[in-house]
């Protein structure tokens, strides 16, 4: 199964045995050759754009970019400490944490509500599922274009229909205290229908006969939910939570279109900060250091969740 196999043989003493081991090893490699050829195209691109990229991030984070006065030079951990000392970055991290919780919790809660309400299949439910799923399909940029008008002060959709009821019209995207919550609304709208699908799939696994027995024993809908459905959905919850957190870090298109991270950095998120450092300030060192820190955090999260899922039976 693995390359370690030949090494497990008794240590070769005589030349003849050594030759025998070598022969076995090379014949195993020869037998593996067709598989390697089949894997080669994929591995070339993975090497270039995944593992190679990891290596380049690490190297770029350790060097200072060239300036008109000085060539590129090794600076060790300077970039990382510069990023950590940058209030724009720490602000983006704090924003991103608030944003992750503020988008994950409502969108997962809504997804669960939708799935429970639309479990049974008939035409009405299918139409409702489709309606809730529509936002998942459109690009975040398109969603942002629509929501730009929704949040437009005074004449926009929100103020036109709801804002009139408020004593003071908030400036949804222009007020640093509100803007982050405004862009959360788009994310919740866009993702709830996606998470709904996983809960719908998870609900398929709830045993019918157990539910029937619970009815007969007089368990109400709340008790059935607490004691039968919820335990069954645990793996789905974990899985969807991981996806929601990953989305909170990787979906930043709306920040680009709607706020550019403003007003006064209140909607800046980590990936947008990385983009700004690289594209607007040409500071590859700082961009790479920020990438490295974010990757470490996310890989920790996914590794943890993979472990938890592997330890459980019947994960999604």
């Amino acid at each position, binding site marked *: 199964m693995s390359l370690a196999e030949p090494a497990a043989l008794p240590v070769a003493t005589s030349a003849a045995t050594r030759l025998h081991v070598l022969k076995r090893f090379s014949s195993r490699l020869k037998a593996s050759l067709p598989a390697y050829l089949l894997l080669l195209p994929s591995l070339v691109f993975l090497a270039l754009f995944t593992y*190679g990229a990891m290596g380049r991030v690490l190297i770029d984070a350790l060097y200072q970019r060239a300036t008109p006065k000085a060539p590129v030079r090794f600076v060790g951990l300077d970039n990382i400490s510069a990023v950590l000392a940058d209030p724009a970055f720490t602000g983006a991290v704090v924003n991103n944490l608030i944003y992750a919780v503020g988008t994950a919790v409502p969108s997962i809660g809504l997804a669960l509500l939708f799935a429970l309400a639309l479990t049974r299949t008939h035409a009405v439910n299918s139409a409702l599922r489709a309606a809730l799923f529509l*936002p998942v399909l459109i690009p975040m940029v398109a969603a942002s274009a629509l929501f730009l*008008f929704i949040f437009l002060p005074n004449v926009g959709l929100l103020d036109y229909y709801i804002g009139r009821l408020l004593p003071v019209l908030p400036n949804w995207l222009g007020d640093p205290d509100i803007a982050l919550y405004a862009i959360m609304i788009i994310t919740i709208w866009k993702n709830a229908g996606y998470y709904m699908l996983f809960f719908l799939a998870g609900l398929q696994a709830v045993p019918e006969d157990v539910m*029937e027995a619970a009815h007969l024993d007089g368990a109400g809908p709340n008790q059935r939910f607490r004691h039968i459905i919820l335990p069954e959905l645990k793996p789905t919850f974990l899985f969807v939570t991981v996806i929601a957190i990953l989305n909170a*870090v990787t979906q930043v*298109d709306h920040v680009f279109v709607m706020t550019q991270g403003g007003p006064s950095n209140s909607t800046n998120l980590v990936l947008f900060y990385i983009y700004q450092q690289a594209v607007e300030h040409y500071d590859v060192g700082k961009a790479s250091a920020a990438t490295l820190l974010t990757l470490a955090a996310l890989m920790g999260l996914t590794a943890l969740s993979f472990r938890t899922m592997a330890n459980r039976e019947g994960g999604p």
Partner: protein
Amino acid sequence: MKLIDALWKDAPLATRGEITPKLGFLLTVLLAIVWLIPFLWMGVATLRPASDGINAMAELMPSLKPTLDNIRDAWEIGDFPRYTLNTTIICTGILLVQFFTITLAGFAFARLNFAGKTLIFYLFLMQLMLVPVLLIVPNLKLVAQLGLYDTLAGVMMPFFASAFGTFLMRQAFEAIPTELEDAALIDGASLFQRIRHIYVPLSMPSFSAFAIISVTSHWNDFLWPLMVINSPDKRPLTVGLSVFTKTAEGTQAWGTIAAGTLMVIAPLLVTFLIFQKRFISSFVTSGIK
């Protein structure tokens, strides 16, 4: 309430009188209506004449004198035909190369034994955990070094290998009975002939599921093409729409923005409405892309 009772006709007898599920259902119906409002506004605003003025822009009641001017303006100012072509080239190019790479790699994992199989399997798994979007900075450098900055090929290249697709195909190929392959072996079919004439035709459902996920996600990609593409005539739809929106926002041309947005999302929405079931099941398998 009668209507809701009708929907509960097939529920177990004991639960038909319960109130909580019906309240949840009502809330879901209300939210589904709210969910559709942005789409409704997009349709209404697209057909609204500019003469209605900015104060009527938020009206959800369609205008009595509908016009196609906004669509024409967006089509001309925004260069949407060109953007649509670019996005189509990008999605098709990525998908064709992916079909090739995931079929071969999926077959190797499903049917062959080789030294280092576990190790290589984990190398693929790593791509699933790495969140490719985060690697935009090093990958932009590489694309530039390869001389592919500002080319459509540069936009496509990082997506040519797909761990998700490889695992999907591995699963599909493992489900195919080996007797079929054995029969072909006796007839002297080569490895490639066996993949092409047995494994690929029998795995079409998995291929189409993968195609849906791949095309949808790359149709909607924004940050990566934004970084790679510089020339206006090479922009994909998403980048084109964002530039167009920024310009039109300045002139308060919300009807044109709605029309442009409609053009960007129409192809995917129409395809979805035709193949709803297939889309939904593909997205369930997608999980982590």
